[in-house]
């Protein structure tokens, strides 16, 4: 992973970019969905509350209306004298109670406010109500539903009173409503653990007992609500707590129904989904982060690999073109040198021809002439060998398929290096397999590889050492092999994996390109073979080249 160092910036960029592009939609969608859902949910809750408040309000209104209507019917079907009679009144009361258990008592009051007849649990007969507010309102309006009050019985209650005009007389029929039953109706609007429902009058005095905080007939710490029609649902800070309230004014009495929902409670499911969504998003983000890290790493790795391959290819190409250029140069030089050599050879030959017929055989200089001529000829031949070898090397630049005799090829290659090895006192031993079969391959490229490995071996040994070359043939695998062993210092274990890397060199800067083994490796690979290296540190190294045995007699 060291090579990734150079790509750190790119790696970071890829990670950040993929994360941004992946996360932004996720967050937007998550947030958007949550917003949408919570909006819908809230609307639902509000709607439910409104429905509930409205239903209850309607029920309470209906209740009051029923009472009024019953009492009105009663008042218009009975006369004052009839009802004054308590026995009759009792019968009437029983009848009333059959319709509704909410009647607590009944009383007849004359126009002066005297309680003339009474059926009920309290001692109210004979009390005068002329100072009571409800009395005045009933006389004025014809009927009255009172607010809750304690009254003469010292128990909170509310009454419904209807006035009847009989001739020049008027009298009032009054009933008390059972607050428990009435409260039960109101309380039916309570929901859940924290829900509350109660009635307040215009002055915010509680008309029913709320579930939490507040006593009947005490004032609630609420803002004063203006009368409005319909049902309103609001979120208000009431009594130090944020709550959702449904408010509806009764039609038959100026009472406000307050249905309160614990905001937190009703929103609990919403919060749950919110946490759930957050967990999901967090999970998604985690997956994304891991994913983008992995992707970035894989991409950078691939880039590194591609770069290396390209570097190797470039190196190979560069080497090929160098070799081609070198080949041309060599050919040019060889030709320029061969011409003068040819002339020298002819001239010397001519001298030899002349000498053989001249009668200077007796001359004492003859021996010298003869010797000199022979020596010149010999050295011309020596120079010729060099140029011919150079031409031989230069000739083989194009990749070809030809019959290759491995033993001969290696011997020819060794000829190039004989001098160098000899100069450095390095002994080169060959153990060639007799009658090694020929194979089809590219001899110039193979020669390049052998040259490279032999040069490396010579450099490794440096002075006074041994290089052994073996060739052989594995019938089973249909392969030829050539191994080159030296007794130099060997290759340390940690470098074994790197020696075939392009630009890897253990030589000093400027000595060698680090390309030799890399190119050799790729050449052998392309020829269908492989190079192996074995080294015992301190005891030298052996390079083995295996080539497929191709038996193509058409080439």
């Amino acid at each position: 992973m060291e090579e990734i160092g150079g790509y750190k910036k790119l790696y970071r960029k890829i990670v950040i970019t993929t994360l941004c592009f992946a996360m932004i939609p996720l967050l937007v969608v998550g947030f958007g969905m949550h917003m949408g859902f919570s909006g819908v949910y809230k609307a639902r809750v509000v709607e439910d509350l409104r429905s509930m408040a409205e239903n209850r309000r309607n029920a309470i209104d209906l209740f009051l209306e029923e009472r009024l209507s019953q009492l009105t019917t009663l008042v218009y079907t009975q006369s004052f004298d009839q009802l004054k009679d308590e026995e009759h009144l009792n019968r009437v009361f029983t009848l009333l109670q059959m319709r509704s258990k909410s009647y607590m008592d009944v009383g007849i009051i004359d126009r002066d406010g005297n309680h003339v007849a009474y059926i009920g649990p309290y001692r109210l007969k004979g009390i005068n109500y002329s100072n009571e507010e409800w009395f005045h309102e009933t006389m004025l309006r014809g009927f009255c539903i009172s607010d809750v009050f304690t009254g003469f019985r010292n128990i909170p209650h509310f009454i419904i009173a209807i006035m009847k005009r009989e001739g020049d007389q008027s009298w009032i029929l009054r009933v008390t409503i059972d607050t428990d039953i009435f409260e039960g109706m109101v309380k039916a609007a309570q929901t859940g653990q924290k829900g509350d429902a109660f009635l307040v009058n215009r002055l915010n005095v509680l008309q029913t007992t709320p579930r939490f905080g507040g006593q009947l007939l005490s004032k609630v710490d609420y803002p004063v609500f203006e009368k409005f029609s319909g049902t309103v649902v609001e979120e208000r800070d009431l009594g130090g707590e944020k709550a959702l309230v449904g408010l509806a004014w009764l039609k038959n009495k100026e009472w406000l129904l307050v249905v309160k929902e614990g905001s937190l409670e009703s929103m609990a499911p919403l919060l749950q989904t919110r946490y759930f969504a957050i967990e999901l998003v967090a999970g998604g983000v985690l997956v994304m982060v891991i994913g983008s890290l992995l992707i970035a790493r894989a991409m950078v790795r691939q880039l590194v690999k591609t770069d290396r391959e390209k570097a190797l290819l470039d190196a190979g190409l560069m080497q090929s073109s160098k070799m081609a250029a070198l080949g041309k140069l060599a050919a040019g030089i060889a030709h320029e040198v061969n011409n003068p050599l040819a002339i020298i050879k002819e001239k010397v030959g001519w001298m030899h021809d002349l000498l053989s017929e001249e009668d200077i055989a007796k001359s004492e200089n003859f021996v010298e002439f003869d010797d000199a001529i022979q020596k010149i000829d010999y050295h011309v031949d020596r120079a010729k060998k060099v140029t011919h070898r150079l031409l031989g090397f230069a000739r083989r630049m194009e990749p070809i398929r030809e019959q290759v005799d491995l033993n001969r090829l290696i011997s020819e290659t060794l000829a190039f290096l004989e001098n160098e090895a000899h100069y450095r006192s390095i002994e080169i031993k060959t153990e060639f397999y007799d009658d090694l079969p020929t194979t089809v391959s590219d001899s110039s490229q193979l020669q390049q590889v052998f040259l490279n490995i032999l040069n490396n071996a010579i450099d490794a040994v440096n002075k006074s050492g041994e290089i052994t070359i073996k060739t052989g043939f594995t019938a089973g695998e249909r392969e030829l092999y050539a191994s080159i062993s030296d007794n130099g210092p060997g290759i340390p274990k940690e470098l074994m994996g790197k020696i075939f890397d392009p630009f890897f060199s253990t030589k000093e800067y400027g000595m060698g390109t680090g390309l030799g083994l890399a190119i050799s490796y790729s050449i052998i690979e392309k020829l269908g073979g492989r190079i192996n290296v074995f080294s015992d540190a301190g005891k030298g190294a052996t390079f083995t080249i295996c080539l497929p045995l191709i038996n193509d007699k058409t080439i």
Partner: protein
Amino acid sequence: MNPAKPKLLIIDDEPDFLETIVKRLLKRQIDATGVDSGKEALRVLQEQSFDVVILDVRMPGMDGIETLKEIKKRSPLTEVIMLTGHGSIKSGIKGMELGAFDYVIKPADFEELFEKVNQAAERKMLHEERVRKA
């Protein structure tokens, strides 16, 4: 033609080489003529006929391959031995395709060259016989 005494034409742009080789051949009683260009060679060929031609491949002006083509056109039975300083296989093969007898790389061993000349002369004679019989 006398196979023991073939008529030789040497074509080479290098004057010292040309001069010396002609001299050596003459010493061995070989009828040898030297010219220094392809153009000159064709001119001479118009006037005389030769048995074997020794031809340098790399020459300025009309190069060896061109000259070879022309010689084979005008006098197909004349055998040509190519001489080359850089021994490129390509020109060697090309020459052989065009009908050259052989090629030799400079600096050439005189005896080796001489041997090839004799072989070429022999072949020419054989071809002439066949033509005559046909």
